[in-house]
């Protein structure tokens, strides 16, 4: 099983986000990037599949601040190879990033025979979950998102996946490999890797560089303005004994026709 995992760095929302002076982007001075959490689940699922079925896990991430640490962490967890994609600005251009990844896969001999491409279903700068489907479309391979279970059948070159649907319903799909999957949750929580192991990976392992082929096409959409949320009236705090507060809650719900 030859698996490619796509990782990327996204703004860390623990830090205060500020709008840049241009009024339409995030101020990079105070911005800190963090590995996209759903991508950790994609990596975990890939590592579990490798442990079960053998094979190789390659991680690929567009160049960004602190991305080396994320890639070395993936190597320390058990990934076999780490690729850093330069020339692709991941922020706010998901379609462009998908194209750059498509080009990098075509230009990297080992990746042409990849069986599965896993990535987090979404990212906080890609809530529309576009990366995986656009990449699948460009590659002409199947895609399913919000996946919680992946069972490949290497002999038949087929993969069975479960997708979470509303109201607790799960859908099962079977499709030929290669396929692109947006992972919602790995079978178990992403593993912890001791800091000493990451440090050791930094000393003994290498990150390979890959280039996005052609310059990315201009975005067909443009960000016109970016604003922080406007603070509206504050929440009303209900005071009094538990009985009084419960009474007030009932009054409010009744007044709004909810009871």
């Amino acid at each position: 099983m030859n698996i490619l995992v796509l990782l990327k760095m996204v703004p860390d929302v623990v830090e205060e986000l500020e709008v840049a002076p241009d009024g339409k982007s995030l101020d990079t001075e105070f911005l800190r990037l963090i590995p996209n959490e759903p991508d950790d689940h994609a990596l975990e699922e890939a590592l579990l599949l490798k442990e079960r079925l053998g094979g190789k896990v390659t991680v690929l991430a567009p160049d960004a601040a602190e991305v080396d640490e994320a890639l070395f962490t993936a190597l320390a967890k058990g990934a076999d190879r780490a690729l850093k994609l330069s020339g692709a600005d991941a922020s706010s251009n998901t379609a462009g990033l998908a194209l750059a990844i498509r080009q990098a896969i075509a230009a990297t001999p080992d990746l042409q025979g990849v069986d599965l491409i896993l990535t987090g279903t979404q990212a906080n700068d890609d809530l529309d979950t576009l990366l995986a489907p656009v990449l699948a479309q460009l590659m002409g391979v199947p895609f399913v998102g919000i996946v919680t279970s992946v069972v490949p059948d290497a002999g038949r070159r087929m993969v069975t996946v479960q997708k979470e649907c509303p109201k607790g319903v799960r859908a099962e799909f079977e499709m030929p490999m290669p396929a692109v999957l947006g992972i919602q949750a790995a079978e178990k929580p992403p593993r912890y890797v001791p800091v000493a192991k990451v440090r050791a990976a930094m000393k003994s392992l290498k990150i390979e560089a890959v280039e996005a082929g052609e310059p990315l096409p201009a975005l067909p959409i443009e960000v016109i303005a970016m604003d922080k949320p406007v603070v509206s009236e504050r929440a009303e705090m209900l005071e009094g004994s538990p009985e009084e507060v419960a009474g007030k809650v009932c009054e409010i719900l009744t007044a709004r026709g909810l009871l």
Partner: protein
Amino acid sequence: MNAATAWTEIASCPSSLENLFDTEEGRRLRTCIQCGTCAGTCPYGDTMDYPPRRMIALLRSGQIEKVFTSDSLLNCVACYACMAKCPRGIRLTDVLLPLMKEQTLAHMPELPAELQKALQNTMRYGNPMGESSRKRALWLKTAGVPIRVLPEQPGPVDLLWFVECYSAFYARGQDIARATAKVFNALGLDFAVLGNEEKCAGECGRLTWEPGLYETLIDYNMAIFAKYSFNHIVTGCPHALNAFRLRYPSYGFRYDTLHVTELLVRHLDRLKPLLKRKLNYTVTYHDSCCLGRRNSIFDEPRILLKAIPGVKLVEMTHHRENAICCGGGGGGMWLDTYYKTKGYERLSERRIKEAVEIGADVLAIACDYEFSRFEDALKVLGHDKRMVVRDITELLAESMEA
């Protein structure tokens, strides 16, 4: 056990299990008489497949790997009870248990989620809560007294006050920070804080599972200390005190480090006249494991409490060397959910039952981990109307009010 001189030996303590028997501590391990006092005194000894006594037996017979894949070490709250009671002077909590925890972390298929998150947060943000490191000094705005921040006003200072995570970020912990600032100011001490430059000292990193994390934090904090000129470090966090006294010396740290209670006792003559208001409380004091059993700081907190007019100090059944751990050390702060799912009694609840039994109305603490532990336990047990938890600095500050 002479805690005060132990650091020189700590500095040469073994860093891995492989060379353990070539060291002084390894020689002691060979002298273990398998009496089982460690297992008997351990607050969670009954929950462990491999309590310390069995661990040593397996270590000596070359079967120690068995322990790595069990969850026994998850139940070690680094309370120093086994080490304090060992008739052979084996330094379990200082040496063997951390080495075993490190191996457990490397071999366990899955870490409890809360503990994993706390370790990741401490690595990324320098605090286990996962708060932005740029907000560490925010509490200063609410201090009510002037506090010098070294990065803004460098230059020599007598006392570097290492505030630590729970006092900087946790809402009740900030009350300790404010009270401490007030008392320091009233005494006219020359002190300063590191503001946003401070990061967790990392005690729970070394003692809890993660030497890589601990070393990263030591490297960071040592570089910060080197930037400034000061005579002593003072901290209200017994875990930071432990780290500075017992672990940092291996990395070249030579600063004199004091707990806030030790510092204040040194200034007792000037402190006493400031304690004007009578506080008619029946107070019992909970000995923090790191302060008490590990660093022999038993008297200072009690001296301060007795200096407050009106305070009646009563002792719980288990006090000083025999105090029961709050359950927060060694990673226990982030294992409550895990213990709950296993059906273990929370140690903080065991402690609160003792405190309520002797009729105290204030549980005094001197460790910033303990607000969350004991205030939660009071609520869980339904005793929150009968008793409150107060840091000693809070009681001092209250007594200073006109």
